[in-house]
Every structure is written in C-alpha cells, then in structure tokens.
C-alpha cells in the first residue's frame, strides 16, 4: 500500500500540480478583482514551477518562480496597487464577446486536443531522452545559443530604454 503510494508519489504530485495549475488558470477568468487574478496567476506559475521541478528541470523551475513571480508578477502587483482597484471595469467583468469567446475557447481547446491526440509524436514514451542538468544547459547556452542570448539582452536593453521613454512622456504630461 505505502509502497504503491511512494512508487506513484511523483506521478500523483505531477497530476496534482497540473490540476492546481489548471484550476488557477481557470480562476483567472472568473475572479473579479485584478489582485485576485494576479494571485491566481502567481499560484498557477508556482504550480507550473512545481511541474518543472518534478520533470527534473530544476533550473527552469527556479527561473519560472524567480523571473515570473519575482519580477513579472511583482511588477504586475505593483501596477495593481498603484491603480484604483475599485475601477468601473471591475463592476462589468466581461466584454460583449463573452459567449463567442467561450465558444471559441471550446473550439480551440478541441482543435488542440484533437491535434495532440492524433499527431503528437508518441515515440519517446518510456525511452525518454537523456535528462539534462544545469551544467549541460549552461554549456549549450553559451556555446550554441550565445547569439540568441546576446540578442535577448539587446531586447532587454531596448525595453529598458523604451520604458524610460514612456515614463519620461508620463512625467512631461504631468508637468504640462
């Protein structure tokens, strides 16, 4: 009994995390308060981090939490804090496209699911590829993908400059 439990502990945890992530994501569509939506997203991200951890890519899990929660969502929460949460948009939660959107969601989900069911390469079941750790990842990153890395850093720089410009504009607007 306990042996069975332990043998399947990882799978169970994986399913649990996946289910929690899905529920959190679904909650994002339903909750009214932006802050609660943000919390739902944070929990979704953390659960996804757990999923990554269980898949053995710990560094991705760490970065998922570190960057998404520690940076992106902190920004988001910051913005929500700065803006009045009792906005008019909070009273009318959904747009006019609620039903088309839901139908579209159903169709998209079905199309994707059918696609996965039919066309997903089943090959590596059981014969999983060699798992890789952070060392291999880092080596690959800095030898094969250094250009991409540099390009993203350029992107980041551009983003910083753009954000600064936007803030400058904001300040000028305030003054004028």
């Amino acid at each position, binding site marked *: 009994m306990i042996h069975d439990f332990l043998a399947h502990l990882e799978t169970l945890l994986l399913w649990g995390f996946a289910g929690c992530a899905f529920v959190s994501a679904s909650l994002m569509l339903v909750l009214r*308060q932006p802050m609660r939506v943000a919390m739902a997203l944070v929990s979704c991200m953390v659960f996804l981090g757990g999923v990554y951890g269980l898949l053995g890519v710990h*560094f991705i*899990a760490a970065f998922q939490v570190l960057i998404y929660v520690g940076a992106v*969502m*902190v920004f988001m929460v910051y913005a929500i804090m700065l803006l009045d949460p009792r906005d008019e948009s909070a009273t009318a939660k959904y747009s006019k496209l609620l039903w088309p959107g839901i139908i579209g969601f159903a169709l998209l989900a079905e199309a994707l699911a059918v696609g996965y069911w039919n066309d997903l390469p089943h090959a590596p079941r059981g014969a999983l590829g060699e798992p890789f750790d952070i060392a291999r990842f880092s080596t690959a990153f800095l030898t094969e993908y250094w250009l991409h890395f540099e390009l993203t850093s350029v992107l980041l720089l551009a983003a910083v400059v753009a954000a600064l410009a936007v803030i400058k504009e904001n300040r000028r607007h305030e003054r004028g």
Partner: protein
Amino acid sequence: MIADLVISLVFIGYAISVLMGFGTILTWVERKQAAVMSDRIGANRAYIRIPFTKVKLVWWGLFHGMADGLKMLLKEDFKPRTYDWYAYAVAPWVVFTPVLLVFAVIPFGGTLTPAALWAPLGEWFGDKSYPMQIATLDAGLLIVFAFSGLTIIGAMLAGWSSSNKFSLLGALRAGSQMISYELVLGLTVLGLILIYGTVDLDSMVRKQSGTVLGVLPAWGIVYQPFAAILFLTAAIAENKRIPFDLPEAESELIAGYFTEYSAMKMGLFMFAEFIEIAVIGALFTTLFLGGYNLPFMSDAGFAFPGGAAVAMPHGAVVVTQLATFLAKVFVVCSFQILIRWTLPRFRYDQVLTFAWKFMLPLAIANLCVTAVAVWWIRA
C-alpha cells in the same frame, strides 16, 4: 524506499525544529543582546514556577519568547474593513512559507550513513548514505532566490489589502527595496558560482572543506571577502531590518505593511522575520563560512597541518558537523542583531540609491574581477 521516506521525514523534522527553535530563541536573543549592548539587564521577568514548589525557573528570561507566542495566539484577531479579505488573510502565509522552504536546499551536515552510526540500522538501510539536506537539487541556489522572490509578493499583498495608506506606502517601499536588493544579492553570489563552478549548495560546501595555502580554511569568505560583506548587507536589506527597515519604519509608517495585522497574523510576520535571520545565517554559513565544515576536519576526523591527526567515529563526525553548522549560524545571527542595535536608519531614497548606485556597481566590479581572476588561474 520507505527508508528514504523515513530519512526525509527525519531531515524535515530536524529542519523545522531548528528553524522554529531559532525563531523562538532569536526573539529573546535580540532583547537580551540589546540589553547587554546598552548595558541594561533586559528581559528577566518571565519565569516558570514548578507547580507546588517555590522554584522559579527564570533562565535569564528565556521564557519571554514563550510568553510572547502565547500572547499572540490568544489576542483578539482584529479584522480591518478591507475590500479583499482573502488577500489580507493569505498574505502572512505567503511571507512565512517561502522562508521555511528555503531551508530545504541548505545542507546542514555532511553525509549520513545510518549503518555506520549504529549497526542494527544497517539491516534496514543497508549501506546507503544520505547527504544531510532535504532536497538535493542541482539548482539549489536558484531555488533560494526564487523563494525569496515570493516573499516580496506577500509583503505587497499585505500592504495593499490592509486598506490603509501607511500600509500601502510600506508595501510599495518593501517591493522596491526587496527587488533592488535581491538583484544585488544575486550578483554577489555570481562570483562564488564562478569560483565553485556550481550552483548546487551541497557541492559548494564540499568544495570549501580543504585549506588554502595550508593554513586558511578554503571558505568562501577567504575567496570572496568583498562579496561576503555585500551579501550580508544586501541580505539584511532584503530582510528589511535596521538600518534598512524603511518599509516598517515606526516613526513614519506606524508598522508599514503589517500595521493592520494583529494577533498571530502579526506574529507570523514577526516570526518570518526572525526565521529569515536564521535563514540568512544559514545561507551565509553555507556560502561563505564553509557550512558544516571545520578547518582541518574531514569525514574521517581531524588532520592538522604538521602531521597530527585525530580519528573520529562516524557518529562523532555527524554530531560535530551539525553542531558546527548551528554554531556558525548562531554567530551570524548574533552578528545581524549586533548590526541592528548599532546602526541608525537610512532615509528611504538613500536606501534605493545605496542599492543601485553603490552596491550594484560594487557587486558588478567584484564579479568582473573574479571572472578575470578565474580565467587567469584556469588558463
């Protein structure tokens, strides 16, 4: 399989009890050390009287911690009128939990071989050995940072959901400050990662077990003294303690983001802060002070320079290592409290300026110098 589970549970239990113990003790240590530093007697009134006797156990006021805990548990849990009660309720836990979780990746001892500890255990465990660490992860250090990122969200959530201007200001301050100093924290550690070539905390500690030049212990602080200072400073700022306690500066913001909290919810914030002190101590110990290592000591015992050697049984080694780790952590904690009662508080703009214009450049400079040095030596 079950043996693994048992060991894990034992480790988890040990970790939790250590953290809780530190959390409790540090509340007392802080008071007592403050008293000592300011030449006072300090907390000494709480005591336990053994029933039906006149024996009072005062123990230097050690029971003040318990009294505080009891008080917090029993106080009225005042609920402010807020627009998001759920966030209000969940915030302390978001602050508290990640702090506990960080300890999962910190190695608090060397390798444990149950069979060598006590022969009958061998029947159960075989000759397996376990590193004394809850989760052996190749991305250990990254996990630490990931979890400390979560506490930012908790603090901001608390301040926002309190529906109080002071809380909101405190939360904004907390957010900005913690993001800034987390960056510095990460950058200071990069130097160590370069030197050790790993982010796995356990192997980091193992690499600190030798000596440098035959005399000095090969601790991180020897390789990276500069980074150690920066790290400790940034960590204290991350923990929002004096001199960086602007998010909860009582003269400006009452108590900052947890102004509206009372009873055990407030207790959780306080507790998280004290546990964080311990976690910082543990991290500093692991990264810079050689973790559970004592100079000249290996798994077999001591081997001093000059040929003298002392052989030790496995049990003694394990106990020594555990004790060493705890002792080092306690020293670092005490040092943090020392700073807390020594330095005055910054102004808020100074805090951020300090982070971005002073610490960050220094950390980057340190990183560059380290990188060049490592490249030089490897080449």
